[in-house]
């Protein structure tokens, strides 16, 4: 398998040694050679995937150890081995201390010894590069977790504290009107808290869950959504219309699809302009060749152009309107990634917002 061959760079000022090395190993490994540290440096720049570096110690101008020391900070990944014919104890000690050398190979080398050393070096290379990859992932996950904990603490506590505040006010209220006003607030705070907990639940459903692919029953899905938003539409005088054009079947995860639609519709209903005479939310679903095209459109408050690129970020909120948690659209994006889908948004402040979604069926 060509592409899985180990990339080895051999550095020696003696051209014969280079030729000998290449002749011995070119069938097993992808062998690069350099007659000087300067040339080796160029090769390291152009081949960032070099896994094993073998250098002669005694070269004019620069020793192998000096070269390793020099590249330590720029090219830390390749595993280094030092090759020398002299039993030079100082060089060996320096190699270990300064050059981060994995192995020391006596010249003239034996083919089997060299092969074993390269294989071991490569195993070490794979283990460490995997480790550093995992480390990067872990750092990212930890940062996200910090942000998550900070924001979740805030979002869970603030409705509770609002209610406690309202209770204090209600206790010293002088009129029943004031008490009712506080009770209304408490109820709304609890609705907000419940909504937030639903968002967290969605977050974990998407993040941790396995996809459950079935033929999507749009009739049932839409009946569910209609049930949720019908009342909202009537009480707030919002015209809610659904258009479908389903041709053939569409295979996907119904729950994940539901989370996407529910979040987008919830936003469309939430961010309406209260003073607008004709308010609408339009949902359109087309299925063709096991591919779904979905549009959610409203003529609400819209999103300022400057905020559009951030709206899918976790906990990002572009407005104080409504009870946003900064979770909804993040979940939508995450859910679409799971389904290999794509989303586009276009919006104008005070005119409305259009989300266009494109999901391939499984």
């Amino acid at each position, binding site marked *: 398998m060509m592409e899985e061959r180990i990339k080895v760079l051999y550095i020696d000022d003696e051209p014969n040694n280079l030729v000998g090395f290449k002749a011995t190993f070119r069938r097993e490994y992808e062998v690069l050679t350099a007659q000087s540290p300067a040339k080796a440096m160029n090769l390291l720049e152009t081949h960032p995937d070099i896994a094993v570096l073998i250098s002669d110690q005694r070269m004019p101008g620069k020793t192998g150890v000096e070269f390793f020391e020099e590249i330590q900070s720029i090219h830390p990944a390749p595993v280094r081995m030092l090759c020398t014919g002299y039993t030079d104890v100082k060089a060996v000690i320096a190699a270990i201390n300064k050059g981060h050398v994995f192995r020391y190979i006596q010249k003239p080398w034996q083919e089997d010894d060299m092969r074993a050393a390269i294989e071991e070096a490569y195993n070490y290379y794979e283990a460490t590069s995997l480790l550093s990859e995992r480390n990067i992932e872990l750092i990212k996950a930890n940062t996200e977790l910090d942000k998550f904990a*900070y*924001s979740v*603490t*805030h979002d869970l*506590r*603030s409705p509770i*504290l*609002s209610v*406690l*505040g*309202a*209770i*204090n*006010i209600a206790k*010293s209220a002088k009129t029943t009107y004031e008490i009712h006003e506080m009770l209304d*607030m408490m109820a*709304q*705070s609890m609705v907000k808290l419940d909504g937030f907990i639903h968002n967290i639940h969605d977050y974990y459903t998407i993040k941790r869950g396995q996809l459950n692919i079935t033929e999507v029953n749009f009739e049932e899905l839409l009946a569910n959504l209609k049930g949720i938003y019908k009342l909202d539409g009537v009480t707030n005088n919002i015209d809610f219309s659904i258009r479908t054009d389903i041709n053939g079947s569409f295979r996907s995860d119904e729950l994940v699809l539901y989370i996407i639609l529910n979040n987008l519709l919830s936003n469309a209903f939430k961010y309406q302009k209260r003073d607008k005479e004709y308010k609408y939310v339009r949902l359109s679903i087309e299925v063709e060749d096991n591919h779904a095209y979905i549009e959610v459109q409203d003529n609400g408050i819209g999103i300022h152009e400057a905020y559009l690129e951030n709206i899918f970020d976790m906990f*990002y*909120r*572009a*407005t*104080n309107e409504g009870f*946003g948690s*900064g979770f909804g659209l993040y979940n939508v994006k995450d859910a679409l990634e799971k389904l290999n889908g794509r989303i586009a948004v276009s919006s104008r402040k005070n005119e409305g917002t259009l989300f266009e979604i494109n999901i391939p069926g499984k």
Partner: protein
Amino acid sequence: MKPIQQYHFIIIDDSPFDCLIAEKVVQNAQRYLSVKSFQYAQKALEYIAQGGNQDPNTKNIILLDIQMPVMNGFAFLDQFEALPEDITSNYVVFFATSSINANDITRGNSYRSVRHFLNKPLTTINMQQLIDRLVF
């Protein structure tokens, strides 16, 4: 007897509920000349920069939330403290927050205009005591 000092209050909180609660607490504490709420910190900043209540002989207390979208409490203070001294010297800030994050508290106390760090829910008694002990 020392006369009871009264102040203008500016409440900055993204939650309309919390604005309302803070208004009621301020009213019940009975040390107010006026109360004004802002859901957007930017709007409050503009109001203050343009002279606020336009009454040069009175002092103002700002009740400020930390975690708010668009402009949070810290961003507000950064810009507020950059306003001319003859404006800012008429204001003190009380943080009113649900945050229990140690970084937020340390950072909040590093602003010279911040006098107190209040945890929500605000209470009338507590508010009254803090106001009466306040020295401009």
